């Protein structure tokens, strides 16, 4: 079985710099429209963290042409669904709709690229909504630990802070800060429009040209952070707080998605903590019960669960492993087991069978994502945000070309003993009262 992601793919660029990617899929009368902006928490400066995410919220508050209610209705009335996401590297908005309504979504996206109002009253209402969103996350020990580990994993690079931003910044950010951020980064030269589904590329491109072609480009001045290198050896952060289980999180430096090492690293991840899915929508994943860390930690009762996370980012980030430890367990003992397993990876080559298995898993994950038009729209923009679509199209081929010696070299480069950040959250039992 092979999946040809380049099949029926059309690409264009308007004079104002807007890149357009169209993928014809005629299996259902549905289209998924995604607009991606090359702005995320990666480009935020100290004191202004959370700007990108907050701007994303404000994009649902309306323009002169579309009130917030119009935006809701445009999608909901026809049974569509829409959402937006902010990541460290990008901000994206999508609408999946019956294909007859594609023009309306394009009209909305063209309009809110430049005409959002940022009403001061709405800004203040949204401030409390976003703080509420952050407080909801802070209820979880895992979030608090992850935030602490992230801060230690980067000295200066903005990957150090959560996309939500620091609470102090969320209190002090002004309407002008938000509007300025919007004006700078929401413009055609910093955007990619991706449409997948039941479309006729020629007529859609004409529509796009009519709606977006007259939006002027602006000079793009962005804070581009310098990638960070190795982690500080032996760095550990310990927290204590309410809870009934301890948590262990370990972060190692990982390469940027566009770095050739990324593919060998993906195989390391698959083997150590199980494969990550590159799908965003409705496609499920593969369990990790035969991964080395599950076997060593969970099967041997050092932890109740373990999972890993390797994200595809523009700059080198971190590969993280999270373990939940029983109240009578010892996070340090679990860490020792993790170190032993990492040491195995860095000291001997994997078998060809282990690599083949990782490739089959990746192929299955692609297959699961391919029946979903929304996911196909996501893939185009996601890959283009840190590399280009060929990164996805050639993913399985590049994974297949990884050799055992490349995996070993990559492991030795990124996972040397002690060169990781360790986070431990110790539970201090809380009293529950009904």
């Amino acid at each position, binding site marked *: 079985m092979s*999946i040809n992601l380049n099949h029926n793919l059309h690409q264009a660029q308007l004079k104002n710099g807007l890149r357009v990617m169209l993928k014809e899929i005629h299996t259902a009368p549905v289209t998924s429209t995604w607009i991606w902006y090359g702005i995320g928490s990666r480009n935020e400066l100290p004191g202004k963290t959370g700007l990108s995410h907050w701007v994303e919220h404000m994009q649902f508050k309306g323009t002169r042409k579309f009130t917030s209610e119009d935006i809701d209705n445009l999608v909901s009335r026809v*049974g569509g669904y829409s959402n937006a996401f902010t990541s460290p590297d990008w901000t994206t908005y999508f609408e999946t709709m*019956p294909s007859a309504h594609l023009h309306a979504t394009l009209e909305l996206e063209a309009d809110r690229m430049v005409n959002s109002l940022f009403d001061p009253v709405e800004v203040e209402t949204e401030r409390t909504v976003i703080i509420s969103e952050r407080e909801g996350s802070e209820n*979880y020990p895992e979030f608090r630990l992850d935030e602490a580990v992230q801060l230690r994993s980067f000295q200066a690079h903005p990957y150090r802070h959560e996309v939500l931003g620091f609470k102090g910044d969320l209190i002090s950010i002004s309407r002008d800060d938000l509007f300025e951020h919007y004006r700078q980064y929401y413009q055609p030269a910093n955007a990619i429009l991706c449409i997948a589904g039941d479309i006729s590329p020629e007529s859609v491109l004409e529509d796009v040209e009519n709606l977006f072609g007259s939006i002027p480009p602006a000079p793009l001045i962005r804070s581009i952070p310098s990638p960070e290198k190795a982690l500080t050896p032996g760095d550990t952060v310990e927290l204590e707080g309410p809870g009934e289980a301890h948590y262990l999180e370990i972060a190692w430096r990982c390469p940027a998605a566009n770095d050739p090492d990324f593919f060998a690293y993906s195989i390391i991840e698959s083997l150590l903590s199980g494969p990550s899915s590159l799908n965003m929508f409705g496609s499920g994943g593969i369990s990790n019960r035969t991964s080395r860390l599950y076997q060593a930690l969970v099967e041997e009762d050092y932890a109740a669960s373990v999972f890993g996370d390797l994200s595809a980012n523009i700059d080198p980030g971190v590969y993280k492993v999270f373990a939940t430890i029983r109240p009578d367990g010892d996070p340090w003992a679990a860490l020792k087991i993790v170190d032993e397993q990492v040491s195995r990876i860095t000291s001997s080559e994997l078998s060809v069978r282990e690599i083949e298995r990782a490739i089959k898993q990746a192929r299955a994950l692609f297959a699961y994502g391919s029946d979903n038009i929304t996911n196909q729209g996501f893939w185009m923009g996601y890959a283009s945000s840190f590399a280009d679509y060929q990164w996805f199209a050639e993913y399985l081929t590049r994974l297949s070309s990884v050799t055992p010696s490349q995996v070993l070299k990559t492991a030795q480069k990124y996972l040397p003993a002690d060169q990781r950040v360790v986070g431990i959250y110790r539970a201090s039992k809380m009293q529950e009262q009904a």
Partner: protein
Amino acid sequence: MSNSMPDSHTILRETWLNGTTLLAYPNLTSPAVYFTGYMQPGAIEDADELHGLVSFTTDMLMTGTKHLNFQRLHDKIESIGASLSIGTGHLSTTFVGQCLREDLETVWNLLVEIVQQPAFAEKQFKRVRNQILTGIAIQNQDTATMASQAFNRAIYGSHPYAHPDIGYAQSFSGLRLEQLESFHANHYGPKGLVLAVCGGIAPEMARDIFARTLGAWQNKTQTSPKTLPPFTPPASSIRSHTTLEEKKQSDLIIGVPAPKTVSRDYQVCSLGNTILGRYGMMGRIGKVVREKAGLSYEVSSHLGAGIGPTAWKIVAGVNPENLEKAISLLRQEILRFYTEPVTPQELQDVKTQALGRLPLSLETNAGIASILVSIERYGYGLDYLRQLPALIESITAEEILAAAQRYWDLDKLVIASAGKALQ
């Protein structure tokens, strides 16, 4: 995927003498296959002092078989990139899986082996018990779970649905492995098993594989499931709060018993619920609590579906200082919902949304398989999707108001919250 709607002409439905049922629908453009379904038993089989026994027994199924230990079993699944999981619901054990089409027979053979011949190894018994106890301990500090459990206790009272399927920590202290083995032998079997499959496999081929695997399962000792006891709704308002200090956000649930899932009332209330707390940015309550007051990131309403009693509820996460203010705003919206008819525009919006969403819900293998399971579980009939548009079109604002008045009453609300102590 075919543009045609799944119906009695295109869905393959077949029953076997052992009591199993298969529903299959093709999506031959997909290289993958997705299946889901349910079988006996459900958590209602738990005895009073042993809440969690069914869930524990089900969790043990995936820890190895008589022929495959844990490692070998999961290696067989994961090495082909497949997934297979089994869980516990109130009335049934549910399962879901996904694989490349060429691996379907392998995965169904594994499913048969897992449910027929679990190993019940002592080491896994201890490990799974510890995992469940850790899970319960974590849930006990989770505001959303605590609010939900308190809500269920209050609304369901003495009905078995008042208890969490996972059970309570104290249930596990005296539990022995033999009890699980014995329970498995008498309760897990083919009678009542339903499986729906969709993906890149012809229905006839899926039927042949099913016949060789789950269709051939026999268990003569399988007992009939318990009958659900009657449900008595609360006679007056109930308010509970679970204190979890040091939490930054409180979770809130306000609800009432929902209509029976298989009834016209349910379809009527479903449209009403979309207006109340789903449509656009979480409906009317989203507008009031999130958009205007800025009190909450997440506030929405949910109409429960299932066999037996379910709840119609509003859930919200709010800062502890704003909890009472949020309750007050939500009470106002509930009152409005059952004293004033929805507007013609609101009704038109949710109707077109429901009709437009239909093709989107059929976009994926998982979406189709899930609908096929619902069709079977609730006895809707294979032409349900064709009949649904006319049913939706026929619903009026007056019907929604009358239905809302049957279920919502400010004097009979169940309100549960969890978070910092109430001020």
